[in-house]
């Protein structure tokens, strides 16, 4: 057993940490979040130059053959700087679906542009009624000659606004909750009949409500076999759950640091807050919870890396823990900052907002506890 990161992984960590320190201070991030795109296309290209966008793809596709542990390293470092650039929708979700299931033509068309940062994509897998159940799909795709005709509605699609292409989970057969009969289609954002209501989330990220009315999609845009996408969707969402959990662990670490620092400077009743035992013990608890959560993150990353039989169960254990740890660390950090914690002015509140949305993304604690029990 070995918990140490490789030299390459440490270099990636260091690269991102330095980028955040030099180019991504809080005020820069704030400007990006308020901009039209909501993130920096220039920084996105920089990540491409760093090799971060190519990291998880096989060498045959032009990538660096990175695994779950490499993804964990990137996202945990991103979390500490609250990086808002859409890595998970583009690389972890869309990129993996294409890389794992796509035809050679599809891979050649999409992956190089995704890795260089020229192409923006998203994966539309949620519907208003589906919540976290990946098998709950009502958006329908019916084959008509050489085209599918798609009708339906996809909810809160991450990175929808910037996307050039959206991968949409559709029902090609079966009933609403059947695992069989779900297919994946790559749909151009500017397709006729696709309308998108674009908006900002509270955490600064962007999303869309996507309505599909009689949208005609070439048959060649089907990824993988018709009706057989459920398994791969589950696998990719597992990987994305690991990635977003790593981001959360990075955020937790940063929130603990910021809070500790704040209590060492803020004075009340003639002494710094850090001198009050009532507060010290709470900071010890948030410190411990971060460490314990990080332990589960490492465990789940290793299981996924090894394709262990209980990998999915480990992911659910991790995401359950992320939910409860995020609540504790997030809320305690705000409380210990006092009134300043609820102002837009300080970064702590922005970390809190992202950590809070992560509690829900890819399934909240209740969902993952149920899934853990069932696996």
């Amino acid at each position, binding site marked *: 057993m*070995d*918990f140490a990161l490789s030299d390459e992984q440490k270099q990636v960590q260091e690269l991102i940490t330095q980028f955040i320190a030099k180019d991504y201070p809080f005020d820069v991030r704030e400007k990006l979040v308020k901009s039209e795109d909501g993130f920096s296309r220039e920084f996105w290209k920089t990540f491409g130059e760093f090799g971060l966008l190519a990291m998880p793809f096989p060498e045959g596709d032009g990538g660096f053959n990175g695994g779950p542990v490499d993804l964990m390293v990137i996202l945990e470092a991103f979390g500490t700087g609250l990086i808002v650039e859409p890595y998970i929708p583009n690389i972890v979700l869309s990129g993996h679906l294409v890389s794992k299931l796509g035809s050679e033509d599809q891979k050649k068309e999409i992956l190089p542009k995704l890795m260089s940062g020229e192409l923006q994509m998203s994966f539309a897998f949620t519907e208003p009624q589906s919540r976290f159940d990946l098998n709950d799909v009502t958006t329908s795709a019916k084959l008509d000659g050489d085209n599918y005709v798609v009708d339906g509605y996809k909810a809160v699609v991450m990175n929808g606004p910037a996307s050039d292409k959206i991968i949409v989970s559709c029902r090609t057969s079966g009933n609403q909750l059947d695992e069989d009969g779900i297919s994946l289609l790559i749909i151009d954002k500017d397709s006729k009949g696709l309308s998108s209501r674009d908006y900002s989330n509270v955490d600064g990220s962007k999303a869309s409500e996507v309505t599909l009315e009689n949208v005609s999609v070439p048959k060649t845009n089907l990824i993988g076999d018709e009706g057989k996408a459920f398994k791969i969707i589950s696998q990719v969402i597992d990987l994305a759950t690991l990635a977003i959990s790593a981001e959360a662990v990075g955020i937790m670490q940063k929130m603990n640091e910021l809070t500790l620092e704040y209590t060492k400077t803020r004075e009340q009743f003639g002494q710094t807050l850090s001198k009050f035992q009532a507060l010290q013990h709470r900071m010890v608890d948030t410190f411990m919870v971060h460490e314990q959560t990080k332990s589960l993150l490492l465990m789940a990353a290793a299981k996924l890396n090894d394709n262990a039989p209980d990998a999915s169960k480990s992911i659910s254990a991790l995401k359950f823990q992320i939910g409860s740890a995020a609540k504790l660390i997030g809320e305690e950090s705000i409380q210990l900052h006092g009134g300043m914690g609820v102002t837009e002015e300080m970064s702590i509140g922005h970390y809190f907002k992202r950590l809070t949305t992560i509690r829900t993304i890819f399934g909240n604690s209740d969902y993952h506890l149920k899934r853990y029990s069932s696996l």
Partner: protein
Amino acid sequence: MNLSFSPEDLKFQDEVRTFLEKNYPADVKRKMDNGIPLEREDHLKWQKVLSKKGWFAVNWPEEYGGTGWSVTQKHIFQNELAAINSPNIVPFGVSMCGPVIYTFGTEEQKEKFLPAIRDNDVWWCQGYSEPGSGSDLASLKTKAEKKGDKYIVNGTKTWTTMAQHADWIFCLVRTDSSGIKQEGISFLLIDMKSPGVEVKPIITIDGSHEVNMVYLDNVEVPVENLIGEEGAGWSIAKFLLAHERTGIGGIPHLKREIKRLREIANELPLNDGFLKDDDLFMDKLNKLEIDLLSAEFTELRTLAAMSAGGHPGPESSILKIGGTDLQQALSELFVEALGYYAHPFMSEADLASNEKRIGPDFAATAMPHYLNFRKVSIYGGSNEVQRNVIAKAVLGL
């Protein structure tokens, strides 16, 4: 990063499992499986089997009879030990006094005491707490006055676990009262057969006799039984506490117990089904299992870091808090599983007799265990004291 076992590790696991299953004395196993309290001889019989195999002083340096095992091998060994329902290894000699002696003792002291600990020829107990000093350990008052080549020791020690079985006691004593309270403490080894040593039982709320008062009345102790310098006792005490806290979480044992509770839930009737059909109960069980997983990997991370950097430090406080929280939560869940059948009380004598148990087989020990385990967040430095340690040593507050 690679968290899976290597082929060598798996081979080692197999070797350990085979040996333990074959050599675990049947009568000790029967008592453990049936919740019957163990006698002194039961502990020694089993521990001597491990000594003979060279698997007792697992964590010691090899030159003193340790195993030289890797972190992974030690992890495997502890898990296998728990899997056969082994009693906890009595820690006072092998995990506490031994490391103190090989770290701070003279060559003569090492020769005199270490082999006897390693071979289970001497039973040690721990003379730390006093009636007036619980969590504030440094306020201890037991006095040792030097007279010629002897110390004359007077005072009272309390919460002394298994002192009724012990041959020797290691004590923190005050050799100087002039400075601040942490100064003037010394670490002294005392033969329990010395005139003036008296042991009186303390019965705890579960009805068991585990802890004792130890009275020291003009006990004469040769000066060569002082470990380290006179007045160096506080730093030795802290070293020992860090060792004590590391294994205190009892994670391998918890893994076995949670598995057992799951089996119980599958079989225990509830209405027209089984306890496992109660979703709220199972939610608690599953949450606990996830917490345990995170505690286990936190311990492994800590051990891996320690194997690179030497002795346990303040991290051991994290393990102590995390592990003891889980121990208490799980002991409560056993009680909850039983409903009314948690209530009938059986004394240690009842348990040892062949009298038929009331309710399910596991019922008799569940509530006593829950009651007894209130201690775990109090002993070894209360969990509040552990938080003070982390606040100071890790967070720099």
